[in-house]
């Protein structure tokens, strides 16, 4: 497989703004999430306070690789802070 075939672009939507991140399909999604948070200026909170959902609203396990998650080039992912349950 050519080197370029290992890389895809994911589009993270963070607070309504789009951030495109290129990532290796064999890397855990965490790596792309961290870059997206850094580029968007949201590095102030720990990674475990954020959650990633796909366009269908399904919660993604960020420890899994991009390939394992079945993400394709241009996939739109929603990265948001966990808002917790006040109760």
């Amino acid at each position, binding site marked *: 497989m050519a080197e370029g075939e290992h890389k895809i672009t994911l589009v993270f939507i963070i607070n*309504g703004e789009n951030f495109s991140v290129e990532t290796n399909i064999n890397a855990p999604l965490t790596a792309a999430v961290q870059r997206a948070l850094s580029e968007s200026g949201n590095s102030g909170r720990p990674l475990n306070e954020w959650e990633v959902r796909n366009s269908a609203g*399904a919660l993604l396990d960020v420890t899994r690789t991009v390939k394992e998650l079945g993400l394709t080039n241009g996939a739109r992912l929603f990265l948001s802070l966990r*808002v*917790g349950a006040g109760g």
Partner: protein
Amino acid sequence: MQVDPEVNRAKYDREISLLVEQQTTLESRLIFMLSSTAYPHIDLLFVPRHPVQIPGLTTQVGSIILAQPTVTFTDLPMFAGRAFKARFDLTDYDLRAPSLEFRDAWTDAELQYPTMFRARQFEGPGRAPDVLLADHPTTHKPFLCLRGIREYHEHPQHSGDEWLLYRETLNLFSIVMSLWRVSVDLVHPQLNFQMNRMQVQWAAEEKL
């Protein structure tokens, strides 16, 4: 008003712009900005997603264990919960979080808790607490108990969880998406028939 009116208006306009930019995303979730939107309010219509479910009994037969009836739920696709209007008030935003109240989509009357939808935050198997609560100690209205909502941060029980800790990482778009998730996407209305009455319960299920 604590925030300079020009600053507040600029921030309000910014939030509107972000919602408009993500209009396709919002509309794919049947969230619509209404024409009643006017500073400092933003009105959004939320349309229910899941049909009402009714219980039925099925029998599972095992080779050794006697048949045990279990309750399963079946969709009634012709019935669903009611659409509702979420009115966000951005007065003093973003020094204060947006305030949120719930209104009837047809009459604009404030919704009353006993007959409202329910919202639940899925935390794990068997753990999905209610986050739409009946009576806020200050407003005495139903309120959404989630970070990002003024009524949460200004509730006496959450005095240590200030909005200012989150305002850099939460905005109205993300708050709207959270509201949609706990009140529309993850909850299923289910009818529960009892002796002389019928109850509506709201089951929560995470999407994985």
